């Protein structure tokens, strides 16, 4: 059985956000919820400033605190290392969100996709209502509904349950790449079996020194970051006392 992991090459990543948009479309992610997200940071004082951009998603930790804390096993590990969530078992206690050190689990506070549930026309007698638009293209709740998501979990999660990245388990199951990986125009995301020494992820991790988010707390995240884009030049110096 493989153990899936992802390497994110920060030198290749241009911060375009295509991963987030692709994820949203593939997994029918509602507004306000981000399975694929980012951490940005500006450090230094002008003119010596630098902008950091770190794409984030569920880390599919080996020692996942969300899984350990879930009272109903709604949050669970698959044999291939994916941290999966079963909305049917979720009681909405939100303890996984509380436990997650990475802030990548979100809660459906109300009915998801509120905009598309609106029956009112935007301009009366002129435009269609969001509900009509969805019906016109045979969508479910949203016009861009992807039925493939429902192959392994709820197509659209209901109110009162949490949701998060599943490494596109429904695609991986069919031998396809997670959709954020597929959509990345810079090939900055590399997905594969970390147990296989010949996989692309294993080779990259052998070649570059990776870092992981909050490694010190022992969760064993399986999102690895390598390299860093830095065009800055500086004159060799030993500083001054």
């Amino acid at each position, binding site marked *: 059985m493989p153990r899936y992991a992802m390497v994110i090459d920060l030198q290749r990543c241009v911060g375009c956000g295509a991963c987030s948009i692709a994820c949203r479309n593939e997994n029918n992610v509602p507004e*306000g919820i*981000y399975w694929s*997200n*980012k*951490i*940005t940071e500006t450090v230094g004082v002008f003119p010596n400033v630098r902008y950091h951009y770190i794409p*984030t998603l569920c880390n599919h930790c080996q020692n996942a*605190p969300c899984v*350990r*804390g*879930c*009272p*109903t*096993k*709604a949050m669970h590990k698959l044999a291939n290392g994916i941290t999966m969530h079963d909305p*049917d*078992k*979720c*009681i*909405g*206690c*939100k*303890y996984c*969100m*509380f*436990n*997650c*050190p*990475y*802030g*990548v689990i*979100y*809660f*459906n*506070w*109300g*009915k998801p996709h509120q905009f598309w549930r609106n029956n009112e026309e935007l301009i009366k007698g002129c435009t269609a209502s969001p509900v009509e638009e969805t019906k016109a293209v045979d969508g479910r709740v949203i016009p861009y509904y992807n039925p493939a998501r429902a192959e392994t979990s709820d197509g659209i999660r*209901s*109110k*009162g*349950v*949490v949701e998060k990245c599943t490494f596109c388990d429904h695609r991986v199951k069919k031998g396809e790449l997670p959709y954020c990986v597929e959509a990345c125009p810079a090939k900055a995301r590399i997905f594969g079996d970390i147990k296989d020494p010949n996989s692309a992820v294993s080779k990259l991790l052998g070649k570059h020194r990776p870092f992981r*988010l909050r490694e010190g*707390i*022992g*969760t064993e995240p399986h999102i690895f970051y390598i390299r860093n884009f830095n065009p800055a030049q500086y004159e060799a110096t030993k500083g001054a006392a």
Partner: protein
Amino acid sequence: MRIRYTVWLSVLGAGLLAGLYTMVRLFLEGHILFNANDVIIWTLPIGSYVFFALTSSGLGLLSSLGFLFGVQIYKRAGKRLVLLAIAAVLAAFVSVGLELGSLNHIYYIFLSPNFGSPIQIMGSIYSIELVCLLGKFWRLHVNDAQSGVSKLFGIGSFVCSIFAPLVLGSVFGITEARPTFFGSFLPVLCLVIAIVSGVAAFMVYTVIYSLVVKGPYHEANDLLLEDLGVKHTFTLFIALLFYLLWAILRSATSLPDFATDVNFALALFLFIPFAMGLVPAIRSSHWGKLVAGGLTLITIFKLHMEVLLGGQVRPVGPKAEGLPAVLSYSPSIWEYLVLVFSLAVLLSLATFAEKYLRLDAEAA
């Protein structure tokens, strides 16, 4: 008297109706009605749950003094203590039930239990505690505190009353993501707070009962009230010490800026009822007990909210994007109504039991 009772029942009825209306709205619209978000996840209803659950454990422990250890003055109050412990744990269940996003999936707690989860363990212990308390009440109601079955319920309730606060503390304390909860110490603080809450709640209840219901019970209760006054002052001092110790340990082992957020106002409001208890004239007066006990309960509720929010106000990871370093929170009207509902359930059960269940009867 009759008019006062009718007004009291009307207030309770209004509280219950408001709570039921809140429940319906929550089921229809979801927790968007709360002022919670993906950063501040657990809010007033959880604070309310923690308060009532710990108070129930404290009341359960106090009832064990008479039921299990034979302390005479608590034997007489045993039935009332057990009833209040039951009412408090049910109030806690109301709060937490309305906080759950998908209460309709709750049966998975039994069908698919994760015994490694502190929430599962806490839920199990509080459920067993409720069963033991009901059993204890049944044995007291049939005037039997000595049989094997009674002892079994008594021991079960005593053990649960100790372990439940410890596990409740660990629900917060073992979260990797929340350094401010300071894991190893929070369960101990919860146990101490449970004892203080139980003593303060019973002292306030007994004083109010004595003031409202004049009768032979009022005369016979002086000894109990005097003992509760002493226990309240003593346990409050320990709670104050433990709160300060927890704050110091937390700030010494966590990020340096957390050292600045020790709430001295809260410590002061724990100190005031303690100081009141040191003055014999205040400690022995009904009004002194009422004010000191009431102040203790309000401060402890505030302490629960401070502990709860303290671990959440700093956004984690990508959720910090575009947000300030520290967030603020104030409850919505619906969150207040959950608290009102829980309180109404507790007081309704107590009112009903006082009228129909002979709470003054002492078991043999």
